[in-house]
Protein backbone atom coordinates (compact mmCIF):
# COMPACT_ATOMS: atom_id res chain seq x y z
CA UNK A 1 0.00 0.00 0.00
CA UNK A 2 2.87 2.38 0.79
CA UNK A 3 4.29 1.72 -2.66
CA UNK A 4 0.94 2.52 -4.30
CA UNK A 5 0.63 5.73 -2.31
CA UNK A 6 4.17 6.83 -3.16
CA UNK A 7 3.48 6.14 -6.82
CA UNK A 8 0.31 8.23 -6.72
CA UNK A 9 2.21 10.95 -4.88
CA UNK A 10 4.88 10.95 -7.57
CA UNK A 11 2.25 11.12 -10.29
CA UNK A 12 0.54 14.07 -8.64
CA UNK A 13 3.78 16.02 -8.31
CA UNK A 14 5.28 14.96 -11.63
CA UNK A 15 5.33 17.35 -14.57
CA UNK A 16 4.92 16.09 -18.09
CA UNK A 17 8.14 15.84 -20.12
CA UNK A 18 8.97 18.90 -22.24
CA UNK A 19 8.80 16.83 -25.40
CA UNK A 20 7.20 13.48 -26.15
CA UNK A 21 7.62 12.14 -29.64
CA UNK A 22 6.70 8.84 -31.22
CA UNK A 23 8.90 8.12 -34.21
CA UNK A 24 6.99 8.01 -37.47
CA UNK A 25 9.61 5.86 -39.13
CA UNK A 26 10.05 3.47 -36.20
CA UNK A 27 6.52 2.65 -35.12
CA UNK A 28 6.17 1.76 -31.47
CA UNK A 29 9.28 3.63 -30.35
CA UNK A 30 8.95 6.89 -28.42
CA UNK A 31 11.22 9.36 -26.73
CA UNK A 32 10.59 11.70 -23.78
CA UNK A 33 12.81 14.73 -23.27
CA UNK A 34 13.00 16.87 -20.14
CA UNK A 35 14.78 20.22 -19.75
CA UNK A 36 16.09 21.14 -16.32
CA UNK A 37 17.88 24.38 -15.41
CA UNK A 38 20.21 24.82 -12.48
CA UNK A 39 20.56 21.12 -11.74
CA UNK A 40 22.49 20.73 -8.46
CA UNK A 41 23.20 16.99 -8.56
CA UNK A 42 24.27 16.83 -12.22
CA UNK A 43 27.77 15.52 -11.42
CA UNK A 44 26.38 12.73 -9.26
CA UNK A 45 23.92 11.72 -11.97
CA UNK A 46 26.67 11.79 -14.60
CA UNK A 47 28.93 9.60 -12.46
CA UNK A 48 26.12 7.10 -11.96
CA UNK A 49 25.33 7.09 -15.66
CA UNK A 50 28.98 6.33 -16.45
CA UNK A 51 28.96 3.40 -14.03
CA UNK A 52 25.75 2.18 -15.52
CA UNK A 53 23.96 2.30 -12.18
CA UNK A 54 21.45 4.96 -13.12
CA UNK A 55 17.93 3.56 -13.01
CA UNK A 56 15.99 4.23 -15.09
CA UNK A 57 18.71 4.82 -17.64
CA UNK A 58 18.58 8.28 -19.22
CA UNK A 59 20.67 10.23 -21.66
CA UNK A 60 22.21 13.30 -19.99
CA UNK A 61 22.98 16.10 -22.44
CA UNK A 62 24.43 19.57 -21.96
CA UNK A 63 21.44 21.72 -22.86
CA UNK A 64 23.62 24.68 -23.80
CA UNK A 65 24.95 22.82 -26.82
CA UNK A 66 21.62 21.91 -28.38
CA UNK A 67 20.23 24.71 -30.59
CA UNK A 68 16.82 23.22 -31.20
CA UNK A 69 14.45 20.47 -30.15
CA UNK A 70 14.59 19.20 -33.73
CA UNK A 71 18.35 18.56 -33.53
CA UNK A 72 17.77 16.40 -30.48
CA UNK A 73 15.04 14.53 -32.37
CA UNK A 74 17.29 13.90 -35.39
CA UNK A 75 19.94 12.47 -33.06
CA UNK A 76 17.31 10.36 -31.26
CA UNK A 77 16.08 9.10 -34.65
CA UNK A 78 19.60 8.01 -35.53
CA UNK A 79 20.00 6.25 -32.20
CA UNK A 80 16.71 4.39 -32.54
CA UNK A 81 17.49 3.44 -36.14
CA UNK A 82 20.84 1.99 -35.10
CA UNK A 83 19.17 0.16 -32.22
CA UNK A 84 16.52 -1.36 -34.48
CA UNK A 85 19.23 -2.67 -36.77
CA UNK A 86 21.29 -3.92 -33.84
CA UNK A 87 24.19 -1.71 -34.86
CA UNK A 88 24.81 0.44 -31.80
CA UNK A 89 28.29 1.93 -31.66
CA UNK A 90 28.14 2.69 -27.94
CA UNK A 91 27.10 0.29 -25.22
CA UNK A 92 23.55 1.46 -24.72
CA UNK A 93 20.74 3.20 -26.57
CA UNK A 94 20.90 6.30 -24.38
CA UNK A 95 24.66 6.69 -24.76
CA UNK A 96 24.05 6.32 -28.48
CA UNK A 97 21.79 9.39 -28.38
CA UNK A 98 24.54 11.51 -26.81
CA UNK A 99 27.05 10.12 -29.34
CA UNK A 100 24.68 10.85 -32.23
CA UNK A 101 24.63 14.54 -31.31
CA UNK A 102 28.31 14.92 -32.05
CA UNK A 103 29.91 15.74 -35.38
CA UNK A 104 32.98 13.61 -34.71
CA UNK A 105 33.18 9.83 -34.74
CA UNK A 106 35.40 9.67 -31.65
CA UNK A 107 33.14 8.03 -29.08
CA UNK A 108 34.81 8.97 -25.79
CA UNK A 109 35.38 12.59 -26.81
CA UNK A 110 31.84 13.00 -28.08
CA UNK A 111 30.30 11.57 -24.93
CA UNK A 112 32.52 13.84 -22.85
CA UNK A 113 31.75 16.98 -24.85
CA UNK A 114 28.00 16.58 -25.13
CA UNK A 115 27.34 15.04 -21.76
CA UNK A 116 27.12 16.96 -18.51
CA UNK A 117 30.03 19.45 -18.37
CA UNK A 118 32.70 18.56 -15.83
CA UNK A 119 32.91 20.57 -12.64
CA UNK A 120 29.67 22.38 -13.28
CA UNK A 121 27.57 22.97 -10.17
CA UNK A 122 24.43 24.41 -11.73
CA UNK A 123 24.06 22.96 -15.19
CA UNK A 124 21.30 23.09 -17.74
CA UNK A 125 20.64 19.48 -18.54
CA UNK A 126 18.52 17.78 -21.16
CA UNK A 127 17.42 14.32 -20.14
CA UNK A 128 15.99 11.84 -22.58
CA UNK A 129 14.53 8.39 -22.16
CA UNK A 130 13.33 6.07 -24.90
CA UNK A 131 10.08 4.09 -24.57
CA UNK A 132 9.39 5.38 -21.07
CA UNK A 133 6.53 4.04 -19.00
CA UNK A 134 4.68 6.21 -16.50
CA UNK A 135 6.69 4.84 -13.55
CA UNK A 136 9.93 5.51 -15.36
CA UNK A 137 8.86 9.07 -16.13
CA UNK A 138 8.03 9.68 -12.51
CA UNK A 139 11.35 8.14 -11.44
CA UNK A 140 13.28 10.36 -13.87
CA UNK A 141 11.54 13.45 -12.59
CA UNK A 142 12.18 12.32 -9.05
CA UNK A 143 15.92 11.95 -9.38
CA UNK A 144 16.73 15.46 -10.63
CA UNK A 145 17.15 18.46 -8.36
CA UNK A 146 16.55 21.41 -10.60
CA UNK A 147 13.96 23.63 -12.21
CA UNK A 148 11.87 21.79 -14.77
CA UNK A 149 11.10 23.77 -17.92
CA UNK A 150 7.84 22.94 -19.66
CA UNK A 151 8.93 23.31 -23.28
CA UNK A 152 12.10 23.16 -25.35
CA UNK A 153 11.51 26.54 -27.01
CA UNK A 154 13.93 28.27 -24.66
CA UNK A 155 16.87 26.11 -25.80
CA UNK A 156 17.80 28.71 -28.39
CA UNK A 157 18.05 31.47 -25.80
CA UNK A 158 20.44 29.66 -23.50
CA UNK A 159 22.55 28.36 -26.39
CA UNK A 160 26.31 28.75 -26.16
CA UNK A 161 26.81 29.95 -29.77
CA UNK A 162 30.60 30.10 -29.69
CA UNK A 163 30.95 26.60 -28.25
CA UNK A 164 28.51 25.14 -30.77
CA UNK A 165 30.28 26.81 -33.70
CA UNK A 166 33.63 25.54 -32.45
CA UNK A 167 32.43 21.99 -31.75
CA UNK A 168 30.65 21.56 -35.07
CA UNK A 169 33.21 23.67 -36.99
CA UNK A 170 30.61 26.00 -38.44
CA UNK A 171 31.95 28.90 -40.50
CA UNK A 172 30.12 32.23 -41.00
CA UNK A 173 29.55 31.43 -44.70
CA UNK A 174 27.40 28.47 -43.76
CA UNK A 175 25.14 30.67 -41.66
CA UNK A 176 24.34 32.66 -44.80
CA UNK A 177 22.91 29.50 -46.35
CA UNK A 178 20.70 28.64 -43.39
CA UNK A 179 20.29 28.89 -39.66
CA UNK A 180 22.62 27.48 -37.00
CA UNK A 181 20.05 24.83 -36.15
CA UNK A 182 19.96 23.71 -39.81
CA UNK A 183 23.75 23.49 -39.95
CA UNK A 184 23.82 21.36 -36.80
CA UNK A 185 20.98 19.17 -38.13
CA UNK A 186 22.95 18.50 -41.32
CA UNK A 187 25.99 17.43 -39.37
CA UNK A 188 23.98 15.13 -37.12
CA UNK A 189 21.94 13.64 -39.94
CA UNK A 190 24.74 13.09 -42.42
CA UNK A 191 27.59 12.36 -40.04
CA UNK A 192 28.49 8.97 -41.49
CA UNK A 193 28.70 10.40 -44.99
CA UNK A 194 30.94 13.31 -44.19
Amino acid at each position, binding site marked *: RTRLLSRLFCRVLAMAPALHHSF*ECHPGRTVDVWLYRGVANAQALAAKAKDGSLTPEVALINARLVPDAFCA*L*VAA*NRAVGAHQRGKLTTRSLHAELVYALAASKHIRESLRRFGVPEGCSECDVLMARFDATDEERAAVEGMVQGEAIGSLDSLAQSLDDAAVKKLYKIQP*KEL*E*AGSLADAVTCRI*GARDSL
Partner: protein
Amino acid sequence: FCWLAFLDNVAGWPVCPRRCAHRAAPPHLVPGGRLLACSQRGAGRMPAPGAPAAAAEACEQPPGVRSVEGASLLCQGAEARVWSLPAYLGRRAIAKQRFVKRYRLPALDTKLTQRRLVGEARGLCKARKLGVATPAVYAVDTQEATLYIEFVAGVTVKAFLQRSLEAAPAADAGAGSAAAYANGAGLPDASARAGVLKAVGEAVAALHDGDLVHGDLTTSNMLVRQADGRIVMIDFGLASNSSLSEDKAVDLYVLERAVSAAHPEHPDAFETILAAYKAASKQWCPTLNRFADVRARGRKRAMIG
Protein backbone atom coordinates in the same frame (compact mmCIF):
# COMPACT_ATOMS: atom_id res chain seq x y z
CA PHE B 1 14.66 1.10 -75.50
CA CYS B 2 12.75 -1.94 -74.30
CA TRP B 3 13.82 -5.38 -75.46
CA LEU B 4 10.33 -6.61 -75.54
CA ALA B 5 9.11 -3.82 -77.78
CA PHE B 6 11.87 -4.76 -80.21
CA LEU B 7 11.01 -8.42 -80.04
CA ASP B 8 7.39 -7.66 -80.71
CA ASN B 9 8.35 -6.08 -83.96
CA VAL B 10 10.74 -8.83 -84.94
CA ALA B 11 9.46 -12.09 -83.56
CA GLY B 12 5.82 -11.34 -82.93
CA TRP B 13 6.24 -11.84 -79.16
CA PRO B 14 3.87 -10.04 -76.79
CA VAL B 15 5.12 -6.58 -75.91
CA CYS B 16 5.88 -5.52 -72.35
CA PRO B 17 2.46 -4.49 -71.02
CA ARG B 18 3.84 -1.50 -69.12
CA ARG B 19 6.00 -0.13 -71.93
CA CYS B 20 8.66 0.67 -69.42
CA ALA B 21 11.42 2.95 -70.52
CA HIS B 22 14.48 1.52 -68.84
CA ARG B 23 17.55 0.27 -70.62
CA ALA B 24 17.60 -2.92 -72.56
CA ALA B 25 17.36 -6.00 -70.38
CA PRO B 26 16.95 -9.63 -71.42
CA PRO B 27 13.37 -10.85 -71.32
CA HIS B 28 12.50 -13.28 -68.55
CA LEU B 29 10.48 -16.33 -69.24
CA VAL B 30 8.53 -18.21 -66.60
CA PRO B 31 7.72 -21.88 -67.05
CA GLY B 32 4.68 -21.92 -69.24
CA GLY B 33 6.18 -19.45 -71.64
CA ARG B 34 4.60 -16.26 -70.28
CA LEU B 35 6.78 -13.19 -70.63
CA LEU B 36 7.09 -11.19 -67.42
CA ALA B 37 6.67 -7.47 -67.73
CA CYS B 38 9.98 -5.69 -67.12
CA SER B 39 8.43 -3.81 -64.19
CA GLN B 40 7.50 -7.03 -62.42
CA ARG B 41 11.14 -7.93 -62.25
CA GLY B 42 11.70 -4.97 -59.98
CA ALA B 43 13.69 -2.77 -62.33
CA GLY B 44 13.00 0.95 -62.22
CA ARG B 45 9.75 1.65 -63.92
CA MET B 46 7.41 4.47 -64.80
CA PRO B 47 4.44 4.59 -62.48
CA ALA B 48 1.58 3.15 -64.48
CA PRO B 49 -1.79 4.82 -64.07
CA GLY B 50 -4.54 3.03 -62.15
CA ALA B 51 -5.08 1.11 -58.95
CA PRO B 52 -2.53 -1.72 -59.38
CA ALA B 53 0.21 0.90 -59.35
CA ALA B 54 -0.70 1.97 -55.82
CA ALA B 55 -0.35 -1.54 -54.44
CA ALA B 56 2.92 -2.05 -56.25
CA GLU B 57 4.22 1.27 -54.99
CA ALA B 58 3.33 0.41 -51.42
CA CYS B 59 5.50 -2.66 -51.41
CA GLU B 60 8.38 -0.81 -53.03
CA GLN B 61 8.42 1.90 -50.42
CA PRO B 62 11.35 1.84 -48.04
CA PRO B 63 10.26 0.87 -44.49
CA GLY B 64 10.84 4.39 -43.25
CA VAL B 65 8.35 5.72 -45.78
CA ARG B 66 5.89 2.86 -45.45
CA SER B 67 5.25 3.54 -41.77
CA VAL B 68 4.57 7.24 -42.27
CA GLU B 69 0.93 8.02 -42.88
CA GLY B 70 0.10 10.10 -45.88
CA ALA B 71 3.37 9.49 -47.70
CA SER B 72 2.93 10.03 -51.41
CA LEU B 73 5.11 9.61 -54.45
CA LEU B 74 6.05 13.01 -55.85
CA CYS B 75 7.97 11.87 -58.89
CA GLN B 76 10.23 9.18 -60.21
CA GLY B 77 13.38 9.69 -62.18
CA ALA B 78 15.86 7.36 -63.76
CA GLU B 79 17.68 6.75 -60.49
CA ALA B 80 15.33 7.38 -57.63
CA ARG B 81 11.80 7.85 -56.40
CA VAL B 82 10.98 10.96 -54.44
CA TRP B 83 8.42 10.55 -51.66
CA SER B 84 6.79 13.40 -49.79
CA LEU B 85 6.40 12.74 -46.07
CA PRO B 86 3.93 15.02 -44.31
CA ALA B 87 5.46 14.33 -40.89
CA TYR B 88 9.02 13.20 -40.27
CA LEU B 89 10.09 14.05 -36.73
CA GLY B 90 7.36 16.64 -36.80
CA ARG B 91 8.32 18.36 -40.06
CA ARG B 92 7.54 17.92 -43.73
CA ALA B 93 10.31 15.96 -45.39
CA ILE B 94 11.34 14.38 -48.64
CA ALA B 95 12.57 10.78 -48.90
CA LYS B 96 14.69 10.09 -51.96
CA GLN B 97 14.92 6.35 -52.50
CA ARG B 98 17.45 5.01 -54.98
CA PHE B 99 16.15 1.78 -56.35
CA VAL B 100 17.97 -1.39 -57.25
CA LYS B 101 18.83 -1.79 -60.92
CA ARG B 102 18.76 -5.47 -61.61
CA TYR B 103 20.32 -5.23 -65.00
CA ARG B 104 23.58 -4.31 -63.31
CA LEU B 105 25.86 -6.75 -61.57
CA PRO B 106 24.67 -6.77 -57.93
CA ALA B 107 28.08 -5.93 -56.48
CA LEU B 108 28.56 -3.01 -58.86
CA ASP B 109 25.01 -1.83 -58.34
CA THR B 110 25.36 -1.68 -54.55
CA LYS B 111 28.67 0.11 -54.83
CA LEU B 112 27.39 2.68 -57.29
CA THR B 113 24.17 3.32 -55.37
CA GLN B 114 26.03 3.75 -52.08
CA ARG B 115 28.57 6.03 -53.69
CA ARG B 116 25.86 8.22 -55.21
CA LEU B 117 23.89 8.28 -51.94
CA VAL B 118 26.86 9.23 -49.81
CA GLY B 119 28.06 11.66 -52.46
CA GLU B 120 24.70 13.36 -52.49
CA ALA B 121 24.63 13.78 -48.70
CA ARG B 122 28.18 15.08 -48.77
CA GLY B 123 27.43 17.42 -51.67
CA LEU B 124 24.40 18.87 -49.91
CA CYS B 125 26.43 19.57 -46.77
CA LYS B 126 29.39 20.98 -48.66
CA ALA B 127 27.21 23.28 -50.75
CA ARG B 128 25.70 24.59 -47.53
CA LYS B 129 29.21 25.25 -46.19
CA LEU B 130 29.92 27.30 -49.32
CA GLY B 131 26.91 29.52 -48.67
CA VAL B 132 24.53 27.96 -51.21
CA ALA B 133 21.07 27.20 -49.86
CA THR B 134 20.29 23.49 -49.92
CA PRO B 135 17.74 21.31 -48.14
CA ALA B 136 19.01 20.14 -44.74
CA VAL B 137 19.89 16.45 -44.48
CA TYR B 138 17.77 14.73 -41.83
CA ALA B 139 18.95 11.13 -42.21
CA VAL B 140 20.91 8.88 -44.53
CA ASP B 141 19.70 5.26 -44.60
CA THR B 142 22.39 3.24 -46.34
CA GLN B 143 20.54 -0.06 -45.99
CA GLU B 144 17.54 1.22 -47.92
CA ALA B 145 19.60 3.65 -50.03
CA THR B 146 17.25 6.43 -48.95
CA LEU B 147 18.03 10.04 -48.15
CA TYR B 148 15.68 12.04 -45.92
CA ILE B 149 15.93 15.76 -46.50
CA GLU B 150 14.09 18.97 -45.73
CA PHE B 151 10.99 19.76 -47.76
CA VAL B 152 11.55 23.11 -49.45
CA ALA B 153 8.31 24.79 -50.43
CA GLY B 154 8.70 26.50 -53.76
CA VAL B 155 8.80 26.02 -57.54
CA THR B 156 11.59 24.86 -59.81
CA VAL B 157 13.40 27.54 -61.79
CA LYS B 158 12.15 25.70 -64.88
CA ALA B 159 8.53 26.22 -63.90
CA PHE B 160 9.32 29.79 -62.89
CA LEU B 161 10.81 30.64 -66.28
CA GLN B 162 8.02 28.92 -68.15
CA ARG B 163 5.43 30.82 -66.16
CA SER B 164 7.22 34.10 -66.70
CA LEU B 165 6.35 33.75 -70.38
CA GLU B 166 2.69 34.04 -69.49
CA ALA B 167 3.20 37.32 -67.66
CA ALA B 168 1.76 40.36 -69.38
CA PRO B 169 4.49 42.64 -70.73
CA ALA B 170 3.17 45.55 -68.69
CA ALA B 171 3.09 43.80 -65.34
CA ASP B 172 2.44 45.91 -62.28
CA ALA B 173 5.19 46.50 -59.75
CA GLY B 174 3.44 44.45 -57.07
CA ALA B 175 4.04 41.15 -58.84
CA GLY B 176 7.75 41.88 -59.20
CA SER B 177 9.49 39.65 -56.71
CA ALA B 178 10.42 36.03 -57.11
CA ALA B 179 9.15 35.27 -53.63
CA ALA B 180 5.80 36.81 -54.40
CA TYR B 181 5.47 34.66 -57.48
CA ALA B 182 6.50 31.51 -55.71
CA ASN B 183 3.79 32.25 -53.20
CA GLY B 184 1.26 32.24 -55.99
CA ALA B 185 0.66 35.97 -56.09
CA GLY B 186 0.65 36.74 -59.77
CA LEU B 187 3.04 35.97 -62.58
CA PRO B 188 6.73 36.88 -62.54
CA ASP B 189 7.81 39.77 -64.70
CA ALA B 190 11.11 40.50 -66.38
CA SER B 191 12.78 41.91 -63.28
CA ALA B 192 11.86 38.88 -61.19
CA ARG B 193 13.18 36.63 -63.93
CA ALA B 194 16.43 38.57 -64.13
CA GLY B 195 16.77 38.40 -60.35
CA VAL B 196 16.33 34.62 -60.35
CA LEU B 197 18.82 34.10 -63.18
CA LYS B 198 21.35 36.32 -61.42
CA ALA B 199 20.89 34.32 -58.23
CA VAL B 200 21.45 31.10 -60.19
CA GLY B 201 24.72 32.47 -61.57
CA GLU B 202 25.84 33.50 -58.11
CA ALA B 203 24.98 30.09 -56.65
CA VAL B 204 26.91 28.23 -59.36
CA ALA B 205 29.84 30.60 -58.86
CA ALA B 206 29.84 29.87 -55.12
CA LEU B 207 29.84 26.13 -55.79
CA HIS B 208 32.69 26.34 -58.30
CA ASP B 209 34.78 28.62 -56.11
CA GLY B 210 34.56 25.95 -53.43
CA ASP B 211 35.67 23.29 -55.93
CA LEU B 212 32.30 21.57 -55.86
CA VAL B 213 31.09 20.56 -59.30
CA HIS B 214 27.33 19.89 -59.27
CA GLY B 215 27.38 17.47 -62.18
CA ASP B 216 23.75 17.86 -63.21
CA LEU B 217 23.02 21.55 -63.53
CA THR B 218 19.58 21.96 -65.02
CA THR B 219 16.76 24.35 -64.23
CA SER B 220 14.77 21.46 -62.74
CA ASN B 221 17.46 21.01 -60.09
CA MET B 222 17.10 24.52 -58.72
CA LEU B 223 14.17 25.70 -56.65
CA VAL B 224 12.92 29.19 -55.93
CA ARG B 225 12.03 29.06 -52.23
CA GLN B 226 8.58 30.35 -51.39
CA ALA B 227 9.59 31.97 -48.10
CA ASP B 228 12.29 34.36 -49.31
CA GLY B 229 12.75 33.80 -53.05
CA ARG B 230 16.25 32.31 -52.61
CA ILE B 231 17.61 29.73 -55.02
CA VAL B 232 17.89 26.30 -53.41
CA MET B 233 20.03 23.72 -55.22
CA ILE B 234 19.02 20.06 -55.09
CA ASP B 235 20.10 16.73 -56.57
CA PHE B 236 23.79 16.44 -55.80
CA GLY B 237 23.94 12.76 -56.78
CA LEU B 238 26.50 13.42 -59.49
CA ALA B 239 28.41 16.05 -57.53
CA SER B 240 32.17 15.74 -57.17
CA ASN B 241 35.12 17.57 -55.72
CA SER B 242 37.28 19.06 -58.45
CA SER B 243 39.53 22.06 -58.82
CA LEU B 244 40.03 21.52 -62.57
CA SER B 245 38.69 24.30 -64.75
CA GLU B 246 37.77 21.63 -67.31
CA ASP B 247 35.23 20.08 -64.93
CA LYS B 248 33.74 23.45 -64.02
CA ALA B 249 33.58 24.42 -67.69
CA VAL B 250 31.75 21.18 -68.49
CA ASP B 251 29.34 21.93 -65.64
CA LEU B 252 28.58 25.32 -67.20
CA TYR B 253 28.24 23.71 -70.62
CA VAL B 254 25.69 21.23 -69.26
CA LEU B 255 23.78 24.17 -67.80
CA GLU B 256 23.91 26.05 -71.09
CA ARG B 257 22.56 23.09 -73.04
CA ALA B 258 19.85 22.48 -70.44
CA VAL B 259 18.73 26.11 -70.45
CA SER B 260 18.71 26.41 -74.23
CA ALA B 261 16.82 23.13 -74.60
CA ALA B 262 14.20 23.78 -71.92
CA HIS B 263 13.75 27.51 -72.44
CA PRO B 264 14.18 28.37 -76.10
CA GLU B 265 11.88 31.36 -75.58
CA HIS B 266 14.47 33.00 -73.31
CA PRO B 267 17.52 33.26 -75.56
CA ASP B 268 19.26 35.63 -73.15
CA ALA B 269 18.74 33.49 -70.03
CA PHE B 270 22.14 31.82 -70.10
CA GLU B 271 23.89 35.10 -70.86
CA THR B 272 22.36 36.58 -67.70
CA ILE B 273 23.50 33.57 -65.68
CA LEU B 274 26.99 33.75 -67.13
CA ALA B 275 27.28 37.48 -66.43
CA ALA B 276 26.30 36.91 -62.81
CA TYR B 277 28.76 33.98 -62.61
CA LYS B 278 31.56 36.17 -63.88
CA ALA B 279 30.75 38.91 -61.40
CA ALA B 280 30.49 36.57 -58.42
CA SER B 281 33.28 34.08 -59.07
CA LYS B 282 36.91 34.67 -58.14
CA GLN B 283 38.22 32.08 -60.59
CA TRP B 284 36.09 32.94 -63.58
CA CYS B 285 39.00 33.56 -65.94
CA PRO B 286 40.42 30.04 -66.42
CA THR B 287 36.96 28.53 -66.19
CA LEU B 288 35.41 30.75 -68.83
CA ASN B 289 38.41 30.33 -71.13
CA ARG B 290 38.00 26.59 -70.86
CA PHE B 291 34.28 27.00 -71.30
CA ALA B 292 34.85 28.62 -74.69
CA ASP B 293 36.93 25.55 -75.67
CA VAL B 294 34.29 23.14 -74.46
CA ARG B 295 31.60 25.03 -76.34
CA ALA B 296 33.62 24.64 -79.49
CA ARG B 297 34.45 20.97 -79.20
CA GLY B 298 31.75 19.47 -76.94
CA ARG B 299 32.18 17.65 -73.62
CA LYS B 300 34.33 14.60 -72.87
CA ARG B 301 36.73 15.46 -75.66
CA ALA B 302 39.62 16.71 -73.56
CA MET B 303 41.99 14.83 -75.89
CA ILE B 304 44.25 13.96 -73.01
CA GLY B 305 45.16 10.36 -72.60
